[in-house]
């Protein structure tokens, strides 16, 4: 495992560079424990995770639906692929600022900003997926006179799934990052908000404690949910090493 190695290097470095601004992992763990038991860490974490989850689910649903339309319907693609390109290249921060100005510094604009940042990515991935669908398998549905529902279940969805999973994976790492940035920009709590306050006091151990807690959650999600889920859903694929 590479994580213990990272921790060891960190610990050794902190023992060489003795400085208030470079705390050791043990100190950070101590601060993290205190913040979790007595401070606001859990509340902040919950807030951030809730925002991330909301935006993730909505963006995935919306992006998948629109992506399918892009991939399947010629005129949708022709009319809106320019918009998609703009969406893909809009700086995340601009979307957030504009929404904060229009809708105010509130929960809705934050979540909406995250969604708007992620949706184009999902659309683009799903569109490529739908375009790559095999005519051969459609013929299979035709020759065996499959009902629309069976085609959906046996041919359409299984072809789409790997792309939705890929979009979920890239989208998730994007969301983890921008949720924090948008929280710094304007919100009433959450990991990013707390970190920005601690920044004003140069509270580096606090910042690292919060970041570490956040990363732990992300890792737990990745190894506890995403990977097993992918392995299970894509078990029909040859195992590659």
């Amino acid at each position, binding site marked *: 495992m590479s994580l213990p190695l990272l921790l060891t290097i960190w610990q050794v470095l902190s023992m060489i560079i003795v400085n208030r601004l470079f705390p050791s992992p043990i100190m950070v763990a101590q601060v993290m424990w205190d913040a979790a038991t007595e401070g606001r860490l859990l509340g902040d974490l919950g807030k951030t995770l809730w925002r991330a989850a909301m935006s993730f689910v909505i963006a995935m649903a919306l992006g998948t639906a629109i992506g399918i339309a892009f991939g399947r319907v010629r005129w949708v693609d022709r009319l809106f692929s320019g918009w998609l390109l703009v969406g893909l290249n809009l700086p995340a921060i601009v979307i957030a600022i504009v929404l904060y100005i229009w809708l105010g510094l509130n929960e809705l604009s934050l979540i909406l900003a995250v969604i708007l940042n992620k949706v184009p990515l999902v659309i683009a991935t799903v569109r490529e997926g739908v375009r790559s669908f095999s005519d051969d398998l459609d*013929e299979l549905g035709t020759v065996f006179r499959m009902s629309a529902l069976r085609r959906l279940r046996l041919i359409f969805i299984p072809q789409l799934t790997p792309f939705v999973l890929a979009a979920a994976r890239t989208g998730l790492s994007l969301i983890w990052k921008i949720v924090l940035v948008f929280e710094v920009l304007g919100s009433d709590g959450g990991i990013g908000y707390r970190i920005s306050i601690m920044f004003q006091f140069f509270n580096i151990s606090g910042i690292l404690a919060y970041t570490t807690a956040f990363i732990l959650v992300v890792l737990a999600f990745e190894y506890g949910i995403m990977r097993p889920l992918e392995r299970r859903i894509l*078990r*029909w694929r*040859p195992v590659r090493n």
Partner: protein
Amino acid sequence: MATGPELKIDIAEKRFPGAPDALFAGLRLDIAPSSVVALVGPSGIGKSTLLRMIAGIDTDFSGSVEIGGQAARAAPTPGFVFQDPRLLPWLTAIDNIRAADPDCTHEQAMEVLGRVGLAGAGALYPYQLSGGMQRRVALARALVVNARLLLLDEPFVSLDRTLVGEIHALFARLVAESRPTVVFVSHLTEDAAALADRAVLLGHRPACIVADMSLPIAGAERDQATLERYRAMLDGALESDGD
């Protein structure tokens, strides 16, 4: 006894978009109920295309295909084997077979799988099967539909000799028992000699029927001498077309 449908094939013209010449022009082929027809001919002549038009997969041609008096797409589900195995990669062998027929139970699928010699492979995914095994799953999938019409594109390739023998026997038994109409493509005259009661040779371009032979002795009653005679007859017809 139940019989298979009669086929009336009348292809006025079939041309692929962008192709300089027509693949078929004025091809007529009537197939009697419950007959077993081998479609033989050189590579690229249009055997697969013809089979796909009969199955209603390819409808982009002028002319008509009637199956038991119905248009191809309106006719009941045929048992179809593509030239490639064409299994759904995300389904196990069993589920691939069941995909062809919503009413097929797990037990029925297992039974058919056993008949093509794959009793132990039911839970495997296509990537875990060899090419020949995949083809046999595809054959089982076509058989499970219990169709009155079987359309098989090279169903016996990439099988070893013993396996070919077994599958031939299985096929002959099925034909004798439920008497479907069968059209199968094969480039091996031994398949045709063993199983068909009529062999149609395609040649030229646009493709037409260059030989139409009847093999009157019933499949089960063919002795070695008959098989060899039929085979020689078919090989002779193929070669004379080559000139």
